[in-house]
């Protein structure tokens, strides 16, 4: 919706370049984004709050820095929005729930929000999501379903559905989401945008309402690979306020994305990842591998059990987090999440601990696989965006439950915290699909190099809303 030619192709790096060079003001960009949301989000329902006053104030500060000849930051004037589980000072952190709506407003921004604003980005609002991040479709009964900009009868994915839809609709070029089992990668895929789930512990979660603490990640959704890289560079780094934040020196990626892939060993995930999806989801990976000349296939043992372990851990930790509310006011939960949280509260500790033990085994297994390749490709979702309200789908002749099955390919990977980039590709149906690029822990730079190469070769990219790919 940012249609002014001065804003380039609408990606964050282009906007920041224009603002820094004085070709456009941050205020003009913010006004454009706010107008786009106002005119277009009624049909999409990606935003749950729009922060007009704050956005214009922050934009004016960026403009003042530019006018004074000072450095406004690498994301100067870039409008962004965040899943509504991130604290925003003065706003209530809903986390997609009605219950949290009774909380007092946050007194400070989440660390991830602060780091973006310190880099010059301008926050314009908070975004729709599944209640407490427990879902893959953002069919939120409290705030309404978020609709896919490519087909408004379809879901945007979840749980960061608003984050995917807001980028796909070009309301903003950049959003933050969270990913516990695929909640960045699934909406990025179904909405046809780029997504990054960094290594577990890379980006501070302080000020982010948790879902399942031992699996929660902060992630980024954007319109280009260079945007992912620039944003990752700004966001990552040690934070003693997050108990799982990894203490490593910064490893910047933006200056590496054009390095090519000539020295990298690439593979394609076989076995579990070569089945379980509709043909177009599997063919998207096969086509990309063929175009890149990849003939190495990696087999990941026990991926199905890894997904099982992720489910048990998620249900147990999530239920524990909400136990008081489940006891006192269970009827105030979204029915879609309530029954699963209640079930999670009944899982024996022995089951939870078995899942954590399995996770330790799977970590070793994945690191063994990733010693033989630098990056491997895998499908991102088993099918393109389902219809809103669609409860079942048919995959390989079997009927599956649509909602949980969307995490089939993402859950085994986040179980062990691997960094993943999802790139948007076209499906035979004309709806967006995605491919996951997976690397060993802390190798985000390598992932982004491969994604950038795919983007350069035209093997992935943002589809235009309203025009289906063929």
């Amino acid at each position, binding site marked *: 919706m940012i249609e002014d030619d001065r804003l380039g192709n609408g990606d964050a790096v282009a906007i920041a370049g224009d603002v820094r060079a004085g070709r456009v003001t941050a205020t003009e960009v913010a006004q454009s984004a706010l107008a786009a949301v106002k005119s277009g989000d009624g049909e999409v329902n990606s935003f749950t709050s729009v922060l007009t006053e704050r956005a214009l104030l922050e934009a004016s500060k960026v403009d003042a820095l530019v006018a004074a000849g000072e450095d406004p930051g690498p994301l100067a004037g870039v409008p962004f929005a965040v899943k509504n589980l991130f604290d925003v000072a003065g706003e209530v952190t809903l986390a997609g729930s009605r219950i949290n709506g009774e909380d007092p407003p946050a007194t400070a921004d989440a660390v991830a929000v602060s780091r973006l604003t310190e880099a010059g980005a301008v926050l314009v609002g908070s975004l729709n999501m599944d209640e407490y991040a427990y879902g893959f479709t953002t069919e939120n009964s409290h705030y309404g379903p978020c609709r896919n900009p490519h087909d408004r009868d379809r879901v945007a994915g979840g749980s960061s559905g608003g984050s995917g839809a807001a980028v796909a609709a070009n309301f903003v070029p950049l959003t933050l989401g969270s990913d516990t089992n695929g909640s960045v990668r699934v909406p990025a895929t179904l909405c046809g945008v780029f997504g990054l789930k960094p290594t577990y512990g890379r980006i501070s979660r302080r000020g982010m309402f948790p879902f399942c603490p031992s699996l929660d990640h902060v992630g980024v959704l954007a319109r280009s690979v260079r945007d992912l890289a620039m944003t990752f560079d700004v966001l990552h780094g040690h934070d003693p306020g997050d108990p*799982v934040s990894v203490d490593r020196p910064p490893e910047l990626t933006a200056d590496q994305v054009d390095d090519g892939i000539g020295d990298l060993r690439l593979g394609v995930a076989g076995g579990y990842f070569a089945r379980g999806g509709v043909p177009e989801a599997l063919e998207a990976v096969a086509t990309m591998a063929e175009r890149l000349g990849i003939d190495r296939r990696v087999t990941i043992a026990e991926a199905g059990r890894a997904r*099982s372990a992720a489910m048990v851990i998620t249900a147990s930790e999530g239920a524990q987090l909400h136990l008081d509310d489940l006891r006192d006011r*269970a009827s105030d939960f979204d029915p879609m999440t309530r029954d699963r949280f209640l*079930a999670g*509260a009944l899982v024996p500790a022995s089951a939870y601990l078995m899942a954590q033990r*399995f996770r330790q085994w799977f970590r070793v297994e994945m690191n063994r696989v990733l010693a033989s390749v630098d990056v491997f490709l895998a499908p991102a979702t088993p099918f393109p965006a389902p219809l809103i309200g669609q409860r079942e789908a048919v995959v390989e002749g079997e009927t599956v439950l649509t909602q949980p099955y969307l995490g089939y390919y993402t859950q085994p990977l986040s179980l062990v915290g691997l960094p993943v980039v999802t790139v948007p590709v076209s499906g035979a149906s004309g709806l967006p699909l995605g491919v996951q690029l997976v690397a060993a822990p802390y190798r985000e730079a390598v992932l982004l190099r491969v994604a950038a190469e795919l983007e350069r070769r035209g093997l992935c990219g943002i589809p235009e809303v309203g025009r289906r790919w063929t």
Partner: protein
Amino acid sequence: VQPAMSSRSAGPLKPTETIDAGPLAAGPLTAGPLAAGPLAAGPLAAGPLDIGWATSGWYRGLEILPKPRFRQDVLVRNPTPEDPDLDGYARAAALAAGLSIDDAWWPGVVRHLGVLMARAASLEPNDIRDAPLPADSAAVFTP
């Protein structure tokens, strides 16, 4: 099933032991807010769980999870709300957790629990791994 450690005994409770003192002596079913709840009035009111609660507090309730049978059943078919073992376990666990679950929600909760228990049970077989799972179950994970 390993019995829970009691803070008032030197070791694990044995199946025949009862909690005869302290706040659990009468059990939440007879004294707490759930005394008139679904367990007292529902289909299990006259079942084995009710007897367990009435006589020995919450350990007997957990005893109704016969591990071999439960695992075999769960692995070959999805448990249903009618499954007496899963349903009974779930009711005992809900009471132990202090949860009062609306009757209308119960089938959905048990269905989800059945899936989770089946998933958890599936982690134990060792048909690919060449060694037992590591003992480390740290919830704070390092990739």
